[in-house]
């Protein structure tokens, strides 16, 4: 009996090391040559934004997997209160939050410093978002007071774990200076470890994370610009998580792979054709209406893929606070388009120039619009240029029609302001991305921004959308969702419906099964 028991113990002892431990190293493949900016206030490209959200917290956050502004919850601030007029906000910080790399405990000074840095054009790409902030002060080491110049649709939205809302270590920025963008310090479950140019960036677990030590120990973020070889590396098991393509054939093919899950999630980027309302022949509303009638959205979605895209319904993407589908947007009617062109004096059709990026996903989309417009007699003269040139030339107002696709913080104000407010017209001192020179809804956009009555605010945004659609400043096309693929042993630890950082959030709960 004793011998049998001893043998059993020995067998367990021998067998124990053979029990496979779950993986703790996560390998992620991303479509990029290299990292761009590690300073979160300069993280504008997809590759940089995905990563920034793994390293930095905000005062508040979207629950992981959600982009619903109504569900914002505490992050570095454990609670907050606002004055009755909504212009003074007091944030109470969590105690004991530690920065990576021994940079100490987070205090109100770090928050004030971060928000001031994010609001300064020299130190942030998102400075305009913080324009409504009058003062940001530390009341005590754990209390921050924010005073606004005017009401904004969502103060918490500005301070969330996104773009300008990321909190950095004051001490690290001051100590490292310009080197901070190569060696950043945040508070999230993963800390920057190293970067190898052209190859990968490594993150290590922040064991002192205030929500608990992460289950993933190490993340390798690999720069792999070739879609084909990134897919092969995913299939061979060298990658656990793969940046996907918003392409139905790719989704179908990847879904068919064993042990593979394809995540398709928000926010969708809405593609629009922005029509310059101040140049001939687009200054004639009938020509713009003809273009709107010539566009066939259901056909675009069939081309793009039903899983990864959906018809755009307004000049603001679906699901944004303030979006309305009741805006008078017209459907496809080629005959009506031809009639309108005839009335405008273009019975024989017309040719309009469009500067277009050579990026394949943008160029192929433009070729589809070109074919649709051709049916109505509009000849789209595509002038294909390299992507950086495209961005420069459309901002120089050189393209009468601009195809632009974008996602923003999901509140109508930001989309409407950046694309349709006269303050944002390109080639002006306050330019953003108003390529159409649209100015018909300034009053409604400005009014909605400071309106404290939520019902009135929604009504103003709806009115703005109606006016912009009626004036045909832009033609909404389709919305494209985000796509990533992962092996089924990788569990995010939450349900992924959306991620404003444009990639799945890796949290302390993310693990391998």
């Amino acid at each position, binding site marked *: 009996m004793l011998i049998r028991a001893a043998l059993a113990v020995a067998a367990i002892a021998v067998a124990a090391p053979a029990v496979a431990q779950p993986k703790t190293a996560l390998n992620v493949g991303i479509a990029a040559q290299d990292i761009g900016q590690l300073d979160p206030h300069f993280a504008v490209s997809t590759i940089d934004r995905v990563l920034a959200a793994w390293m930095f917290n905000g005062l508040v956050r979207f629950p992981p997997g959600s982009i619903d502004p109504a569900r914002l919850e505490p992050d570095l601030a454990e609670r907050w209160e606002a004055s009755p007029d909504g212009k003074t906000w007091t944030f109470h910080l969590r105690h004991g939050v530690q920065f990576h790399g021994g940079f100490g405990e987070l205090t109100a000074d770090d928050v004030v410093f971060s928000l001031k840095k994010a609001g300064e054009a020299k130190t942030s790409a998102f400075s*305009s978002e913080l324009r409504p902030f009058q003062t940001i002060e530390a009341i005590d080491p754990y209390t921050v007071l924010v005073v606004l110049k005017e009401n904004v649709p969502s103060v918490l939205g500005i301070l969330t774990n996104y773009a300008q809302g990321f909190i950095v270590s004051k001490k690290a920025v001051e100590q490292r200076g310009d080197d901070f963008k190569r060696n950043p310090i945040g508070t999230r479950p993963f800390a920057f470890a190293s970067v190898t140019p052209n190859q990968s960036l490594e993150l290590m677990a922040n064991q002192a994370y205030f929500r608990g030590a992460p289950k993933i120990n190490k993340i390798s973020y690999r720069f792999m610009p070739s879609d084909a070889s990134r897919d092969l590396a995913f299939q061979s098991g060298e990658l656990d998580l793969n940046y996907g393509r918003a392409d139905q054939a790719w989704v179908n093919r990847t879904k068919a792979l064993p042990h593979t899950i394809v995540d398709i999630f928000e926010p969708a980027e809405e593609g629009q054709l922005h029509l310059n309302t101040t140049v001939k022949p687009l200054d004639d509303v009938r020509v713009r209406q003809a273009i709107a009638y010539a566009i066939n959205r259901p056909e675009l979605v069939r081309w793009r893929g039903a899983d990864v895209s959906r018809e755009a319904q307004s000049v603001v993407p679906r699901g944004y606070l303030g979006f309305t589908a009741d805006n008078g947007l017209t459907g496809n009617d080629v005959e009506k388009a031809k009639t309108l062109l005839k009335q405008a004096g273009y019975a024989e059709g017309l040719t309009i120039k469009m500067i277009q990026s050579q990026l394949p996903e943008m160029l192929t989309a433009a070729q589809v619009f070109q074919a649709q417009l051709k049916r109505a007699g509009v000849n789209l003269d595509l002038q294909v240029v390299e992507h950086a040139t495209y961005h420069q030339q459309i901002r120089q107002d050189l393209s009468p029609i601009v195809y632009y696709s974008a996602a923003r913080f999901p509140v109508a104000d930001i989309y409407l302001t950046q694309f349709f407010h006269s303050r944002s017209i390109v080639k002006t001192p306050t330019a953003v991305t108003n390529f159409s020179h649209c100015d018909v809804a300034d009053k409604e956009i400005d009014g909605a921004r400071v309106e404290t009555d939520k019902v009135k605010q929604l009504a103003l945004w709806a009115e703005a959308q109606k006016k912009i659609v009626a004036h045909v400043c832009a033609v909404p096309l389709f919305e494209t969702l985000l796509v990533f693929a992962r092996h089924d042993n990788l569990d995010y630890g939450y349900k992924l419906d959306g991620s404003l950082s444009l990639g799945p959030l890796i949290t302390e709960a993310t693990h391998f099964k």
Partner: protein
Amino acid sequence: MIFYIIRRLLAAIPTLLAVLTLVFLIVRVVPGDPAIAILGDRATPDGIAALHAKLGLDKPIWQQYVDFLGQSLSGDFGRSMVTGRPILTDVGAVLPHTIDLTLASLVVGIAMGIPVGIWAALHRNRFIDYAARMLSLIGLSFPVFVSGIFILLLFALHWRLFPVIGNARLDDPLDRLNKLVLPAATLGLVMAAYITRVTRSAMLSVLGEDYIRTARAKGVPWRRVVWRHGLRNAAMPVVTVVGLYIGILIGNSVLTEIVFNRPGLGKIIVGALNQRDYTMLQGLMVIYCFLIVVVNLITDLTYGLIDPRVKQ
């Protein structure tokens, strides 16, 4: 010999200066603003102006040129406008990978191309010759991004002999070799196809010469005629082509680097061009030009070794 090398290196200085100037001008003539590339689609005029000032792009062009020349001549290529990393650090990190790939594919190309080319020439218009010509044509016709994916499908995914991701650890020779095999074979096959054709044609031309006929008439064994009189005289065009091809390889390996996920100079150049990273482009082009000068010098020195008449 040493004076010759010094003279050649000194002669390269005007070339490098011309390249510096051309690169400086070209990157600024190409449309596209690095500030917009860095700040993204929400770039405001304030932000763009602030970044221009920070990057020194608000200075007059001549002043930027003088600054750039001064820095370059002192061996400081500055930092990347986008990542802020020192350019020499980035180049230093990837250069061993580029050199590995270039040399390994050169070895594959020469080891396959020269024997096959000789063999084809010696069996002119026979099956072996046709087969070699056909295979070299196929090798030249397949773009690397197609042949590379086929090779990955077979060796990395089907047989699982090699990894798909080729970013080797430089301190681990076995890892380095393991991740070099497939890209070197892919690029080497293209080079082999090229060298086969050049060797065949050079050998055919030499084998028809009078001195070959004389050697054969004197009763010199055929093998010796081929090696000593044929190949040595045919080697000059082959060396020229190999020398030229190394220069092309350093730059053209970008597709191989992308398909096999290897770091390398070519990949950095493409990334820098896309992001309008002026400083990185300038630094890379100067380094690239310097490498070409060195390769040309080695090629010229090799001429002297093969053909003593060149030394005179």
